[in-house]
């Protein structure tokens, strides 16, 4: 197997795994056999894994397996929302800043500077603190900081080609500005941005879990991994399964998406052209 096919095969494998995760999340009710993640029998509290509860139960007798599976929904939805949001906003602003330069660039980049001077979590905490803790606000908060990264990246990619001859050629041949942005700048930045986005899904998931862990993200009884870890923390020793399974879930999902991003880079990397 030569290098290229090897890369493709690994990419397909990670894609399949990612798809499996996403499908699990979408078909959570099927996977868990219709168990409600937010209800349980109080008398079944803290049952160890086994005995009808694959991953055991938590303090309110809820099935951990069900909650972990449903947790994928919450985590993935939130992480994807962040990534899609920052991807769109960041790419757009970055391209505008890079292409037009001058005052547009200055304004956008100064705002970006401002946002980047807020360490991500700090702003997230501030937003959560002010607008109230919820997964939606956590998404907004993280997006508020993260778009700068995409804007900077898109801008730098645009700047790289902005002065290329082929861009000048396109202008000289009478291309209109929107056409330039869509046909030249966008395709140029997209691969790198997509790679970054794919890699970031894992990172965003970790950040969101961190916020939920602090109590600024998802609120009970939402099945969310960070929150579940927080709940399990009190039972760290007596009922370790409360921490092990959500932790494992985060780990697996983050690993899969990170590797997906990496192998996407391998096959998409513009440097190889």
């Amino acid at each position: 197997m030569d290098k290229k096919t090897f890369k493709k095969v690994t990419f397909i494998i990670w894609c399949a795994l990612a798809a499996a995760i996403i499908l699990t999340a979408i078909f959570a009710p099927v996977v868990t056999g219709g168990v409600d993640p937010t209800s349980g029998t109080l008398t079944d509290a803290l049952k160890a894994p086994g005995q009808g509860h694959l991953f055991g139960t938590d303090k309110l007798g809820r099935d951990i397996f069900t909650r972990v599976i449903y947790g994928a929904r919450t985590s993935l939805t939130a992480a994807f929302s962040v990534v899609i949001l920052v991807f769109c906003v960041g790419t757009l602003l970055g391209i505008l800043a890079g292409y037009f330069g001058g005052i547009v660039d200055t304004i956008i980049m100064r705002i970006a500077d401002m946002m980047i001077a807020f360490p991500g979590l700090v702003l997230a905490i501030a937003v959560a603190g002010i607008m109230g803790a919820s997964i939606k606000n956590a998404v907004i908060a993280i997006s508020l900081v993260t778009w700068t990264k995409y804007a900077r990246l898109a801008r730098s990619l645009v700047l790289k080609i902005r002065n290329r001859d082929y861009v000048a050629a396109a202008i000289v041949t009478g291309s209109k500005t929107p056409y330039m942005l869509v046909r030249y700048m966008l395709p140029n930045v997209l691969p790198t941005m997509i790679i970054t986005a794919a890699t970031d899904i894992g990172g965003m998931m970790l950040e969101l879990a961190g916020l939920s862990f602090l109590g600024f993200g998802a609120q009970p009884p939402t099945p969310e991994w960070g929150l579940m870890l927080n709940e399990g923390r009190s039972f760290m020793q007596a009922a370790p399964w409360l921490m092990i399974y959500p932790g494992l879930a985060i780990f697996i999902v983050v690993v899969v998406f990170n590797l997906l991003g990496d192998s996407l880079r391998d096959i998409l990397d513009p440097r190889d052209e």
Partner: protein
Amino acid sequence: MTKKQLGIRLIQMVVVLFGISFLTFILTYLAPGDPVQAMYSATGIMPKPEVLEAAREELGLNQPMLIQYGNWLTACLKGDFGTSYAYHKPVVELLVTRLWPTLKLALLSMVLMLIVSIPFGMLSAVYKNKWIDYLTRGITFFGVSVPNFWVGLMLMLFFCVKLGWLPVVSSNGDFKSLVLPAVTLAFAMSAKYTRQVRAAILDELNQDYVTGARARGVKESNILWKNVFPNSLLPLITMFGLSVGALLGGTAVVEVVFSYPGLGNLAVSAITAYDYPLIQGYVLWIAIIYMLINLIVDLSYIYVDPRIREKR
């Protein structure tokens, strides 16, 4: 960097800080809840409407938003960030007492991170696609894929509870209590940074001057240590500066896990208590620290890199 550039840079910083202050102000201004009410109810009973009104009058909270912002800003410039609702103390005083523990934590974890990531990043780059590279990359992968609070808790379980070597609650902030939070923070960061070090060294190893040095017969070890490594420090310094932001944010989680008495912990409790002046103060402080560090990084970059320093 000439004095003029430095001046421009400082002005930019001020503009950005100005923006940040405005943003924090707006955020808290828009926040639900009435600060006066919050201030009073913190003491336990509901004051009469006249009292509230009088207090609003006194605090200037009846005025238009921009004037309020102006007042707040002038006070800030004078070093008065207001009084914490929850602690009934000047915000500055609270922040000052928490600053050093957080800096200590941040510094130690940075040192740990550097100690780990630079050698491993270099090994990984020099022995690219050898077993040591795969091993290092595997471990760093693990490092970036587990939540740091989870790592913290596991470390706590093992080193504090099982072995009893270190304190569970790091609230007194001595060295022993610093170790685990720092290790936890350093864990994920080292993983990230090792990858960056590897990339930077590889980048540098692909430069033409390496071929040049080889053509001159210069020893590989000299090429690596005297040329490639110092040069790859330049991009690494920048990344380092940027990672300080993540670090300052990351401290919050770890501080909470270990009950470490730092700024992050303070901020988290300020938020649960809707303590707006404290939140504002915290955000502004972190922004200032972050920007100062990045200014220093830029300055050092400019100092270290002759291409920028000596450009005529």
